[in-house]
């Protein structure tokens, strides 16, 4: 089997499980939607300040919700004792990482397909643009790259529900800034060139953390 088909096999396994029990996507989307709804109550929204605060609320909601989903990424493997089986498989560890990261990427991406349209409705902003797709893709790649590594690390920690966000959120802050700022440019109707620096930052973040995490992941599973 080639590397890509191994990654796809692991990602597909997680996706198949997800299609059967719908644990993660429902939890992530539900959590993010609640954050959005609560903020529409917490603030007096009008057309001007929706543009100002909307992007921040959207990405904070997705980041917090993403953590709850990432917590499940390895929990199922540990509960079912299938992590050992995965480790025994004659494939290199970086492919296991990339497969799990692919699964997490798909979950968060599917949740966003639900969340972003609702965001557009609640905040009355136009988000169905190519810029939004690029921002969402770059952010989700970074989230799942860092999140998969940290989820694998914190799965055996007591109070892992607390540990994962404490690790994950500060590390992804630059990516979160990039997502919020470029979304803000987008809802203000500015062009690609104005958000270019932020998108470049997101690309750099994604490349750095996909490569480093894949390389370093082997150390999380050794016994």
């Amino acid at each position, binding site marked *: 089997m080639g590397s890509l088909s191994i990654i796809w096999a692991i990602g597909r396994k997680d996706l198949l499980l997800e299609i059967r029990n719908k644990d993660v996507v429902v939890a992530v989307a539900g959590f993010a939607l609640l954050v959005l709804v609560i903020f529409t109550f917490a603030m007096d929204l009008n057309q001007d300040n929706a543009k100002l605060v909307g992007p921040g609320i959207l990405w904070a909601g997705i980041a917090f919700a993403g953590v709850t989903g990432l917590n499940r990424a390895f929990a199922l493997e540990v509960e079912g004792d299938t992590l050992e089986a995965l480790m025994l498989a004659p494939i290199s560890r970086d492919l296991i990482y990339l497969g799990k990261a692919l699964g997490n990427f798909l979950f968060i991406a599917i949740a966003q397909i639900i969340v972003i349209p609702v965001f557009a409705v609640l905040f009355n902003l136009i988000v169905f643009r190519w810029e939004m797709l690029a921002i969402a893709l770059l952010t989700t790649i970074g989230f799942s790259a860092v999140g998969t590594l940290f989820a694998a690390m914190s799965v055996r920690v007591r109070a892992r529900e607390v540990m994962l966000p404490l690790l994950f959120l500060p*590390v992804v802050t630059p990516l979160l800034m990039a997502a919020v700022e470029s979304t803000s440019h987008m809802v203000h109707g500015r062009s690609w060139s104005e958000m270019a620096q932020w998108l470049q930052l997101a690309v750099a973040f994604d490349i750095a953390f996909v490569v480093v995490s894949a390389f*370093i992941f082997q150390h999380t599973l050794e016994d």
Partner: protein
Amino acid sequence: MNKILDLLDPLLILSATFMGVALYLIFIWVPTETNQGAVQRILYFHVPVAWGSMLGIFVVSGSSFMYLLKKNEKWDRLAVASAEVGLIFGGIMLLSGMIWARPVWAVWWTGEAKLTTALILFFIYVAYLMFRAYFPPGAQRQRLAAIIGVIGAIDTPIIYFAANLWSQAHPPLITGPAADSDSALGSDLGTVLLISTLAFSFVFIFMVQARYKIRKSEDDVVELKRSSSASAMTGVN
């Protein structure tokens, strides 16, 4: 005997001497800065502890990397010792900075790039130490903690770049009395800063090596317990 605190420890004497000289220079010798007033003296503490916390982060990431490479316990002990000391220095840096900023910039906190970076790094190293506290002891904990140390190091330039870009888009609000005037102290300021930085560097090294020794003793105790319980078991058999 490997004592934790030895009053004749040359490092302790060195740090105490330098600290005494630094305190004299800061509070008695150096003239009060005319624009900012007495509050400017915070700078002589703020800059050295900021340097100390940077040194801490540097040592944590360096020794974490070495641990992943060599799997030698001593790198792990060095990492955890300098993480703890670095975090204390970082906390003092954030607090002293805020106390200084309130009268001088008229705000406690602002979105300036260095401030944002320092705060996020502070949180990463809080997470590093919390992770160590939560994880069951053993080689795996040290390996995973080392990964956090390395990830933090890789993230640092990205955080700084992002914070810089961010503060360009949202210019920090600084309005206080000395917002746009430089210090009029010149070379006096440099002298005091240098001595104070040296003093705090010695304190940093002293604290890290003391913590390193405690860490070593902790490991020795665990090792002794294991070997004594093992010999007790063989005694029963």
